[in-house]
């Protein structure tokens, strides 16, 4: 009941003219950003975060969350029309979306994607509303050791579930944490890691600079390279009658939508997983449960519905740990979390008690954003398809310029644009070798918080590091984290044993 009252108050905040306008603008920009091949929510949020500092925090988060949300819808558009995922989160949508478009059913696929996104988004916002307040209340009991243990757990999920090369993942986590330590020490005030005595490093390396460098410059370089080859737009026709037919056809997909939404939501809550694996898992699950799995990959409508419902649900799922525990569930929410710190908010459970208008305004705006985005998506499909024709060689330089101007804006010093260039170039080269970028961004955002809670715990306990294991909550969290660290080692060991057994078996047979 209390939640409902909060939610109604939240709607009052979300429907203030400025917030409503920002939400609509965000949805539209998000759709457009998501639709562009190679650009996803994380790029949009990283590049546009600096310019939100002119509006109040609630408006800023509503704007950015709307972009985040819209991008999940928009990603499907280029997956279907061009066969290139609009963002990594829409990879699974290409499997059946592109064949559908080739069969002249692009409009059916687009309607299915938009509707599934809407269902996924709505179910997950409801789940969010139900779970967030109790989780936040529970988290109020956390002290520094628990906070530190949770962050260790967040990093451990990247190692256990991230699916990237493990030494490279560990390297990137540590790298992000060390980069976050550059500048004045938060506890003693001493300057440290001031490279080449450049005064710019005294104030530290902002996570925005790193995120823009990696997701703005590095990823653009990467996309430019890939988009260099010509892509072909699927033929399409759009008529109202066909759209009505498309809706009718979707009746058979309701079960898929709902199941994928739940799956996506819970995968999204995990820090390392998020929308991309969530949508791939939903696709796999739907295919496995189908009576006719052979139809998948050849233009099956459920193959579009499942990943689209799941990626939207996952994106809301990622907001849950970010708002209640202060642990982001995805790189995009990591950037949002960093933004909140700059806006002067303390992420974590206290947010629900101290800043209810922020939390509930955001939640209410998510409900509203769902309606706005699905309507815009279907209404403006021709516009987004037209935008896809914009050559990447015009779009890319404009984005480069926006990155540097946006990176300059928060602190207004040229040091930051130069740093963005360095991170962009290094990030591009590292990405080519499959060094994962998400743990790096998460680590630079969480780094100062992790160091603070680590040192506070040790100071309070006079250096007794067993405190992380003897307090019940942090002990359990640490054990789960340890399990996630060891899980890949266990897998490798089993694989090696299986291979040896197979070799022995082969030897005996010969």
């Amino acid at each position: 009941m209390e939640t409902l009252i909060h939610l109604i108050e939240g709607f009052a905040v979300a429907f203030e003219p400025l917030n409503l306008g920002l939400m609509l603008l965000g949805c539209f920009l998000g759709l457009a950003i998501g639709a562009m091949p190679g650009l996803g929510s994380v790029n949009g949020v990283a590049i546009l975060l600096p310019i939100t500092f002119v509006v109040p925090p609630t408006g800023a988060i509503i704007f950015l969350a709307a972009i985040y949300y819209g991008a999940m819808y928009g990603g499907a558009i280029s997956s279907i029309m061009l066969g290139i995922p609009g963002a990594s989160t829409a990879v699974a949508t290409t499997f059946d979306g592109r064949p559908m478009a080739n069969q002249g059913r692009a409009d059916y696929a687009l309607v299915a994607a938009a509707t599934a996104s809407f269902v996924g988004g709505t179910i997950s916002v409801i789940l969010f509303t139900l779970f967030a307040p109790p989780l936040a209340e529970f988290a109020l009991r956390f002290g520094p050791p628990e906070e530190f243990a949770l962050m260790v757990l967040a990093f451990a999920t990247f190692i256990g579930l991230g699916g990237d090369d493990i030494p490279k993942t560990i390297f990137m986590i540590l790298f992000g944490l060390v980069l976050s330590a550059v500048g004045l020490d938060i506890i003693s005030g001493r300057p440290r890691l001031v490279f080449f005595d450049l005064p710019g490093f005294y104030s530290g390396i902002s996570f925005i600079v790193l995120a823009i460098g990696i997701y703005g410059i590095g990823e653009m370089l990467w996309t430019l390279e890939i988009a260099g080859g010509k892509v072909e737009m699927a033929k399409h026709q759009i008529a109202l009658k066909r759209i009505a037919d498309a809706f009718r056809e979707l009746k058979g997909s309701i079960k898929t939508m709902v199941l994928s939404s739940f799956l996506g939501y819970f995968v999204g809550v995990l820090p390392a997983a998020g929308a991309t694996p969530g949508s791939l898992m939903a696709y796999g699950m739907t295919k496995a449960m189908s009576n006719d799995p052979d139809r998948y990959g050849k233009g099956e409508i459920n193959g579009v519905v499942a990943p689209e419902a799941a990626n939207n649900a996952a994106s809301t799922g990622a907001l849950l740990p970010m708002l209640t525990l202060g642990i982001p569930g995805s790189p995009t929410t990591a950037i949002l979390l960093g933004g909140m710190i700059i806006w002067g908010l303390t992420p974590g459970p206290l947010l629900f008690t101290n800043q209810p208008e922020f939390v509930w305004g955001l939640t209410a705006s998510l409900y509203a954003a769902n309606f706005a985005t699905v309507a815009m998506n279907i209404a403006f499909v021709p516009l987004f398809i037209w935008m896809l024709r914009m050559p990447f060689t015009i779009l890319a330089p404009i984005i480069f310029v926006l990155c540097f101007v946006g990176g300059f804006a928060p602190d207004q010093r040229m040091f930051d644009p130069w740093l963005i260039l360095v991170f962009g170039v290094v990030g591009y080269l590292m990405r080519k070798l499959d060094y994962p970028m998400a743990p790096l961004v998460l680590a630079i955002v969480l780094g100062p918080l992790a160091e603070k809670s680590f040192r506070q715990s040790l100071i309070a306990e006079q250096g007794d590091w067993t405190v992380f294991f003897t307090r019940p909550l942090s002990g359990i969290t640490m054990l789960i984290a340890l399990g996630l660290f060891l899980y890949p080692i266990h897998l490798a060991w089993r694989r090696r044993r299986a291979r040896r057994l197979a070799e022995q078996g082969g030897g005996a047979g010969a």
Partner: protein
Amino acid sequence: MRRAELVMAAALGLFSLYLMYMSQIPPLEIGWVRLKGPGSGAFPFWLSLGMLISSAVIFVRGWRRITPQSQSEEPFLNPYALKLFATTSLAIFAMLFLTAYVSAYVAIFLFLLFFIRFIGRHAWPTSLAVSVLFPVAVFFLFESGMKILLPKGYIEPLFYPLYRMFVY
């Protein structure tokens, strides 16, 4: 690709060593300081040691051809990618460098014109239109909208009348 994998791992290892060196320069302490907890350098020092170990593992795995990159025969950057990467980075470098002298706006104009006309090979009218209109839009969004002044270098006086009209 294999050579790139090994070179990158080695470079990252050296960088980790540099970070470790930086973290223990006095007065930074990497151990326990009585009554104050871990020293200021402890957090970055021990984590950099972890980075050094990880990069060593990456190197060894690359050496033993365990990672997919170290098995790949493809070049790390094919000639097309190399050319694109080099021209783009240099163009951005030039843009940032020029910003300090001839204002962000002229630098952005030159960068866009170069990129769209010579890398994108679009027609002159398109190239000129985008590279003139975009800086104008940036001016209105940043300077008159958000009151964020971009660097103007030596041509700042030319902007005084614009400031009077649109900014203040």
